[in-house]
């Protein structure tokens, strides 16, 4: 049996903090909807835009796998492990918060907004040593194919996290069709349309829509326009 959940872009929570515009797929901070808590191990999917020169001041995290994917602009990261880094579109950042970490995330540019996806996954192991990593990936490697940018395996492509999850980016030309095959049977698959229009197993999705599905093994994706996607495969239980 195939179950699914549709999260249209306009159904997301919106938080306007002046310096930060945040569209939140799941309950976050002061926004709460018991029907919008998580999709399996995927707990947070925030679509954040931070004004020039602004950002998140020093704050803590623990026991969460936190992934940032810049879409536009430049983000500057500093943390209590001594990491100072800048990430740009074409890169992915992962912070495995484990036993505790403090960090700041600021827009490095004084004038240009930065837009990035902030994604949190529950870890499959508690209280691990905190860890930071970031990787650059080639944009050409996702043209009409799935480009793996995250996995549970340190030796596999992309960054790794403490959870049996995989992230893929894809940029499909209009009319291109592909099948995504689950890495682990029983996992869920969450498709987030960064830009464009696609059909996922018959469900039409547009820019910033999200669609969670628990497929039997594969999922068909057809681009109705030139489209950019993030595909998140996560366990339902862990």
């Amino acid at each position, binding site marked *: 049996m195939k179950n699914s959940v549709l999260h249209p872009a306009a159904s997301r929570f919106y938080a306007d903090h002046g310096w930060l515009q945040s569209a939140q797929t799941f309950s*976050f*901070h002061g926004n709460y909807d018991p029907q919008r808590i998580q999709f399996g191990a995927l707990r947070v999917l925030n679509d954040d835009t931070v004004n020039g020169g602004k950002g998140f001041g020093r*704050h*803590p995290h*623990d026991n969460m796998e936190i992934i940032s994917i810049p879409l536009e602009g430049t983000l500057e990261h500093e943390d209590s492990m001594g990491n100072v880094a800048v990430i740009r579109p074409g890169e992915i950042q992962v912070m495995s*918060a484990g036993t505790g970490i403090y960090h700041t995330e600021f827009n490095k540019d004084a004038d240009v907004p930065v837009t990035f996806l902030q994604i949190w996954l529950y870890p499959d192991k*508690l209280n691990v040593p905190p860890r930071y990593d970031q990787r650059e990936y080639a944009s050409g490697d996702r043209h009409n194919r799935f480009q793996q940018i995250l996995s549970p395996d340190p030796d596999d492509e992309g960054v790794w996290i403490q959870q049996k999850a995989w992230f893929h980016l894809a940029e499909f030309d209009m009319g291109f069709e592909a099948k995504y095959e689950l890495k682990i049977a029983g996992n869920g698959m969450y498709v987030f349309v960064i830009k464009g229009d696609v059909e996922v197993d018959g469900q039409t999705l547009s820019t910033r829509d999200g669609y969670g599905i628990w497929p039997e093994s594969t999922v068909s994706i057809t681009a109705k326009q030139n489209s950019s996607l993030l595909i998140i495969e996560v366990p339902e239980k862990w």
Partner: protein
Amino acid sequence: MSQINILAIANHPEILETIIRLINQQETWNGIPAGSAEEAETVLRLNSIDLVLLGVGVDEEMGERIVSLCQSMDPRIVCLRHFGGGSGLLYSEIRHALAGG
């Protein structure tokens, strides 16, 4: 609305302080910190606790011990695992638990 007493357990002092501060920002919530299982047990014996947050540093064994103690003292005490260490998930975790989720 009556006050809700929330015991937060974590072995990371700064994170514990942050969680307590965030809890206390809510008018009807009262946060009580504990840095260890022993402190938590003392708090549970001396206070009327509605909800227990099992935070960073609380491993499976310690968590089970706390849950068992709560059940033996008052089965209405809700115990839940807190993730994230900050405001991002804290409020919805607590609201969800208080709503019976």
